[in-house]
């Protein structure tokens, strides 16, 4: 198998290397990829959409149809993880471990024993793996997480003018919740941002994207042609395209954030939503 793989790989690689002579040089401004369509985007992008960052205007405006289905792929991947891994919660069955917070004593309660209240501050439930007292990690994360979220909102809203946009901002928002789930525990994170919220938010994101396109259709223009939204938003056609990009980016951020968090919940607890990393 290894020999066969090696032969196949060397053959394929050799063919590609053999053909590199036909490719343009590295950094060639007159290469075919750099001359036809992208010239139009660079020269007219800002005048058309009022977004200096051409990557954003191409992503959400000129090629918005493409991006809509990329968002749908992320949504479908989240659903696929849910269907593959999620298991129904069986009541009881396994022993649970609690820590008495004032004294630091750890208690193991066997199956069938009396359990403290779920949101009790005196008894805190621990994972069955060894969990040390992580005061510094918890407090550091508590301070850092709001700043990550504000930066993520800035990245989404400022995507017209600087690198960033819905995908990056959504991933950063998801990373802040994942950081909370790792530094505290998975159950607290799920109490803050539940599975149902994730599912609804993901669907809402895709709905915002597709709905903006459908609204353009209702206003008498092509699908995702934001110019048609100008009378609704009360601005001229160029600014309507700029605002349309922002609306669509918010939808992308919703979908990406919710789906990455949902995939993390399912992967880190192997579908039980009980004990995470």
């Amino acid at each position, binding site marked *: *198998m290894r020999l066969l793989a090696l032969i196949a790989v060397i053959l394929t690689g050799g063919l*590609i290397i053999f053909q590199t002579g036909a490719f343009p040089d590295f950094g060639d401004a007159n290469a075919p990829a750099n001359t036809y369509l992208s010239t139009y985007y660079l*020269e007219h992008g800002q005048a058309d959409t009022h977004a200096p960052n051409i*990557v954003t205007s191409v992503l959400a405006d000129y090629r918005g149809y493409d991006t809509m289905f990329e968002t749908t792929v992320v949504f479908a991947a989240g659903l696929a993880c849910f269907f593959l891994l999620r298991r129904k919660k069986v009541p009881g069955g396994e022993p649970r471990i609690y820590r008495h917070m004032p004294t630091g004593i750890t208690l193991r309660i066997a199956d069938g024993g009396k359990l403290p209240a779920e949101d009790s501050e005196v008894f805190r439930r621990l994972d069955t793996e060894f969990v040390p007292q992580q005061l510094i990690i918890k407090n550091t994360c508590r301070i850092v997480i709001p700043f990550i979220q504000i930066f993520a909102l800035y990245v989404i809203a400022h995507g017209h003018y600087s690198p960033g946009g819905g995908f990056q901002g959504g991933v950063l928002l998801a990373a802040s919740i994942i950081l909370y789930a790792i530094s505290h525990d998975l159950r607290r994170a799920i109490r803050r941002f539940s599975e149902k919220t994730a599912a609804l938010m993901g669907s809402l994101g895709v709905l915002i994207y597709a709905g903006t396109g459908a609204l353009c259709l209702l206003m008498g223009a092509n699908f995702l042609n934001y110019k048609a939204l100008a009378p609704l938003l009360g601005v001229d056609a160029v600014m309507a395209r700029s605002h349309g990009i922002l609306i669509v980016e918010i939808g992308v951020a919703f979908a990406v954030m919710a789906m990455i968090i949902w995939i993390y919940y399912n*992967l880190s607890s192997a579908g039980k939503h009980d004990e995470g990393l």
Partner: protein
Amino acid sequence: MTDLLPLMAAKYNYWIYTILMMTGLYAMIAKNNLVKKIIGMNIFQTAIILFYVSIAYKTGGTLPIIMEGGHGGGHGAINAADYINPLPHTLMLTAIVVSVATMGVALALAIKVYRQYGTLEEDDINHQIRTQAGQ
């Protein structure tokens, strides 16, 4: 050999992308462990992204964020050769996010396989399937 060296110097990005892509392909075919195969798949994907990003590069060009030329009056003031090509960047940006979502699905499948067979090694799984079919 004498004309190969300048060729390599002018097109080294293609060499490196080929090496990375073939590393990923070899791992996908020959590695025995499923997680290693998934990592190989991701290396393959990043190699393709490297290819797209490197063909977008222009020597002396700056980032594709327009600095001047205002609203409506920017025609002719913007020279496209001064800016790096934004189109491949756009295509690859979405590809990265989709790659992490597909990686999540692949790892979910790996967990599912481990739950069923108790191993991630491909030959062990094949062996178990064969013995179950023989009974």
